[in-house]
């Protein structure tokens, strides 16, 4: 099925997350997704839909095309237990940079945040981007919140209200985690770690809706 292109307003609010999906990375992914939603943007990633018949690289390319923003986490360039590093994330970063270099006017406006777990590691692993600013999250969700929030705040369109501060966002994220765990336990559902990406997105959105109602009282 041919998917229609996203409208201009949707692409302007969409952030493509190019990151590992392994279990140790999940706390960082959840923190990044929360920060994106709490900043008024829409997170997109390969977990959005699970169509086994879809060609993966095409799906990724469509996501990159439809998102004006992207977060690329290169923290899995280290070798795994078989001695092989993951090349997916650098490849998808390459697709993003290619779209920005050779794409149309809209594609050339793309913004990117490149993350890594350790400082200056990319200088060796991916020296082609060594001149670019890379943020380090140190494998800590709170640091990831800071990186994403600050990047979105610095690059937000002129005239838009400032984003909540790092402290407010981090404390809200902690509260979300606490309350969602209670909600899951009450409903006898699986733990937060087992929640599907779609359910996590809905939960964050619902929690923010309820929290916003409480903050406005």
């Amino acid at each position, binding site marked *: 099925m041919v998917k*229609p292109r996203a409208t201009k307003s949707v692409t302007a609010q969409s952030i493509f997350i190019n990151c590992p999906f392994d279990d140790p990375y999940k706390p960082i992914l959840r923190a990044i997704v929360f920060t994106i939603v709490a900043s*008024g943007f829409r997170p997109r990633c390969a977990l959005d839909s699970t169509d086994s018949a879809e060609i993966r690289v095409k799906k990724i390319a469509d996501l990159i095309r439809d998102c004006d923003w992207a977060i690329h986490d290169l923290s899995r360039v280290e070798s795994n237990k078989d001695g092989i590093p993951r090349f997916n994330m650098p490849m998808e970063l390459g697709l993003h940079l290619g779209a920005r270099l050779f794409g149309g006017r809209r594609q050339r406006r793309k913004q990117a945040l490149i993350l890594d777990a350790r400082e200056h590691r990319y200088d060796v692993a991916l020296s082609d981007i060594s001149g670019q600013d890379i943020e380090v999250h140190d494998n800590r969700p709170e640091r990831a919140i800071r990186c994403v929030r600050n990047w979105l705040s610095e690059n937000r369109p002129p005239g838009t209200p400032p984003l909540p501060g790092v402290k407010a966002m981090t404390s809200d994220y902690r509260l979300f985690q606490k309350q969602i765990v209670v909600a899951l336990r009450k409903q006898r559902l699986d733990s937060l770690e087992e929640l599907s990406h*779609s*359910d996590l997105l809905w*939960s964050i959105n*619902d929690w923010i809706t309820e929290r*916003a*109602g409480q903050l406005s009282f």
Partner: protein
Amino acid sequence: MYTLACTLPKPHIRSMSTPAKKNGRTHPLPATGHPVVYRGVKIAPMSGSRSDTARAIRDALRTEYRHSSGKTTRD
């Protein structure tokens, strides 16, 4: 006996002559709900359908917040 290539059926031409059948929706589902303002930021409602799990979590959160604020939450 030989068959000329031009007399063979051309399924690709037939399929091209008819419009491709849409086997699914081509546009995203409209967003349900209203935007909310959270710490000064406008949060758009999500689009698409929510699972039973997500519905259960929403109900639990609503109940929790209704108890904590002592007020009813909006639908």
